[in-house]
């Protein structure tokens, strides 16, 4: 070892071999010096950069866009993609938030239905052009809606629930479209699905020109657009940014904002820095603590609005204890609803205990349950469990605020004698077990896909469609029949009365303790004007109405 070989090698060939570490070091040093000199050059540019960020014709949004899968209306079903698709395409009808109880005309200027409610006729507005200049006709609407049924992707069920086959959608002339439904359906319900982005109108010529195989252009439309909406999809760098450019042919007139940049910023703390600095105009996804820090900051505006998302505890009726309605009521009285909203959610929630969220038709403001330990204990004693029992509560692991809420419920129920074992599970595992009806108590959420009360009433009330009522094994025919009746009711006020009955019934007998309705926040610079938040997670958000005060930053 002492006469080590490298020593010998070193002296025999000095220059060539020994140079290696030095050459590497010198290259690295040059690279480092080079990059730092760029940094120094760059250091003189930030002022200019800030001014650019307040360009009056460009809107920069920071949000997490990792959920987006496809910008094809027939495929899009995630928050980000649905929100973007709504800027790119028009639909027959639309909602104008904050009102989500009545649709407004968009491509269809009027509509009517046959007395039995199964045959619908839409009059198409004349003079609408696609972004490429093609005129939009009833034939194009026929193609687009048929396309959803033929491709039959994730969100196709929205239309498939009402329309049996593609041939039931027919353009009778250039500006008239008829749709035959499988059965009688409440008009508001059918229209609310037509307002969802799945029913958006695609330019058939562009879609077919880019079709590969029989995909009707779906591959190409994943990151291109062929619509008549206010914007055109210019670029989508996955997990980096989505860029929208104003459509010069937009029939309502070109929007004031010419470019929208949706930047992927998954970390709320980074979003906050960008917003405070003025490099982004709107931040979706700040935490409640950050919102409170920003509330009194000059130049920043916070909007607060309830969204169509309920948090609830599901109780599987198949469980020996939970099969007893008195036990379920005892649990409803054991939970400290106000404490959850005040202490865990810091006020960022709306107290709701019925299964249809605000502001939908049929929203029921009743909140009869409150924390009453004695009453809960008494109900348990009446049910035959004066000493309580052991039960498991499943919730999504590592999720906030679910984890804190689960712990709070464990403490709340312990006080009335119910010993809860917490079962945090990966979301994939939890939903699988829930679908298999194999959970006991579960802390879960339910968001409405479209703003019609039927969406929630069916899920919570009708076990036959195998959603929440079925997963909690609550096979109650009385409420299931009521839900079906409301589904088919043509008269709006009769329907509203039915939902009152349904919500009251589920409130009293249902295997759910609805905890609260989620409140969302959006923070923006005060130079952003006319941003109207959408309670439906951005499905009906209209970014084209926004304009910016041209403010230059000092």
């Amino acid at each position, binding site marked *: 070892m002492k006469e080590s070989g490298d020593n010998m090698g070193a002296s025999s060939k000095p220059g060539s071999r020994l140079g290696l570490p030095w050459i590497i070091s010198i290259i690295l040093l040059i690279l480092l010096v080079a*990059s730092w000199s760029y940094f120094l050059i760059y250091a003189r540019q930030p002022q200019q950069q800030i001014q650019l960020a307040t360009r009056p014709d460009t809107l920069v949004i920071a949000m997490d866009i990792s959920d987006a899968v496809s910008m094809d209306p027939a495929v899009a079903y995630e928050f980000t993609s649905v929100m973007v698709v709504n800027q790119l395409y028009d639909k027959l009808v639309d909602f104008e938030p904050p009102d989500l109880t009545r649709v407004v005309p968009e491509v269809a200027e009027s509509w009517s239905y046959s007395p039995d409610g199964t045959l619908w006729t839409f009059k198409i507005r004349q003079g609408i052009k696609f972004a490429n200049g093609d005129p939009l006709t009833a034939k194009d609407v026929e193609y687009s809606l048929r396309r959803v049924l033929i491709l039959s992707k994730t969100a196709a069920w929205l239309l498939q629930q009402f329309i049996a086959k593609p041939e039931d959608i027919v353009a009778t002339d250039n500006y008239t479209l008829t749709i035959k439904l499988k059965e009688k359906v409440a008009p508001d319900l059918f229209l609310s699905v037509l307002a969802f982005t799945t029913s958006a109108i695609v330019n058939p010529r562009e879609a077919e020109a880019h079709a590969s195989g029989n995909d009707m252009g779906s591959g190409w439309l994943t990151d291109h657009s062929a619509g008549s909406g206010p914007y055109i999809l210019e670029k989508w760098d996955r997990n980096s940014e989505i860029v929208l450019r104003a459509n010069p042919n937009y029939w309502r007139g070109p929007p004031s904002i010419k470019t929208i940049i949706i930047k992927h910023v998954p970390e709320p703390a980074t979003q906050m820095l960008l917003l405070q600095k003025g490099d982004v105009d709107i931040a979706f996804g700040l935490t409640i603590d950050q919102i409170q820090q920003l509330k009194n900051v000059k130049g920043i505006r916070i909007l607060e609005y309830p969204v169509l998302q309920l948090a609830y505890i599901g109780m599987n009726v198949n469980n020996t204890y939970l099969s007893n309605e008195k036990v379920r009521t005892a649990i409803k009285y054991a939970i400290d609803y106000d404490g959850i909203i005040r202490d865990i959610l810091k006020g960022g929630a709306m107290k709701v205990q019925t299964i249809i969220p605000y502001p939908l038709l049929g929203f029921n403001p009743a909140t009869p349950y409150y924390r009453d330990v004695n009453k809960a204990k008494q109900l348990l004693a009446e049910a035959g469990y004066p000493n309580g029992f052991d039960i498991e509560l499943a919730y999504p692991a590592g999720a906030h605020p679910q984890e804190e809420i689960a712990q709070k419920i464990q403490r709340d129920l312990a006080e009335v004698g119910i010993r809860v074992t917490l079962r945090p599970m990966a979301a994939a595992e939890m939903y699988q077990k829930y679908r298999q009806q194999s959970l006991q108590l579960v802390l879960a959420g339910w968001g409405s896909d479209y703003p019609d009360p039927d969406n929630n009433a069916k899920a919570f009330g009708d076990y036959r469609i195998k959603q929440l009522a079925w997963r909690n094994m609550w096979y109650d025919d009385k409420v299931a029949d009521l839900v079906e009746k409301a589904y088919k009711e043509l008269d709006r006020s009769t329907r509203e009365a039915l939902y009152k009955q349904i919500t009251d019934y589920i409130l009293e007998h249902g295997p759910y303790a609805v905890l609260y309705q989620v409140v969302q926040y959006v923070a923006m610079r005060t130079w952003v004007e006319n941003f109207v938040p959408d309670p439906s997670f951005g499905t009906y958000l209209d970014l084209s109405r926004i304009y910016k005060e041209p403010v230059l930053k000092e």
Partner: protein
Amino acid sequence: MSLYSYILRRSLYMMIVVLGIATIVFFITRILPGDPVGAILGPQAPPDVVDKVRREYGFDKPIYVQYIDFLINLFKGELGKSVSTNRPVIEDIKERFPATFELATASLIVAIVIGIPMGIISALRKDGALDHLIRLISLFGVSMPVFWLGLILLLIFYFRLGILPGPGRLDPYIPSPPRITGLVTLDSLLTGNFDVFKNAIAHLILPATVLGYFSSAYIARVTRASVLEVLRQEHVKFARSKGLSSGAILTRHIIKPALIPIITVLGLVYGGLLEGAVLTETIFGWPGLGSYLTRAMIYMDYNAIVGGVVIIAIIYSVINLIVDVLYSYIDPRIKYG
């Protein structure tokens, strides 16, 4: 002696290793509880839709049939389709890997430039004030949470001083260069777009510093130990007694023999960086492999998990091979054949 045939043989072994890892991960993902389709479609999706999508991905088939399909695909160079992005996993990785590669390489450069000199100085001034200071700095590096350091640097250099850009690979108003390699720095140079290049470098500085500093601590400690080891050896005393200048002793007789363990560590560090760094990626909005794989795991996205692990296994094997070949270059006693 044929290095060429050695590399060929190692590549064959590499394929066996990768296949083995892929098989293990394949079965682990299938056996663990969880339903990727249900998780992606969410609690709302009607059961028949869930079943339909499951059939589309072939998840309704028996596991052994899925495994055979997987192997056939693998030999065709395909990794299946991701449930959460609805695209071939290989496409997703092609899109994510350049961003990770760019950041990992920049971080490695920072780590080497900081770590190796720190380690050498520390060893030469063993137990002196400088040694203690350097060891403190590197202790700080390994023990500081990356997300915290990242946020603090953003707060200082981007928010307060405004001398470095915010998160992302480029400024919002700078169009990305045409995609050639996917490396923004290289593509902008290839297309002669010097402003974009400058912007891309500026965006790399903070995340590369955070990751590089973190890794440099490790490199500095190994370098210090390795140099100390060499300093104790007779040949250094001999060189001194020969009257060689201390600079010559350092370069010819100390650093070179100390390099082997350092290279090993560099290989490991680089491999780790190329896996993607989920926290740094999240803070800096960097579209790399780390966040992709984390998301895949949350959703139990079978194909994306297995695909990602296959890629990481290949990266590690290739780096190991490069490190082994470098050994023989640094130390002629090590021969392969």
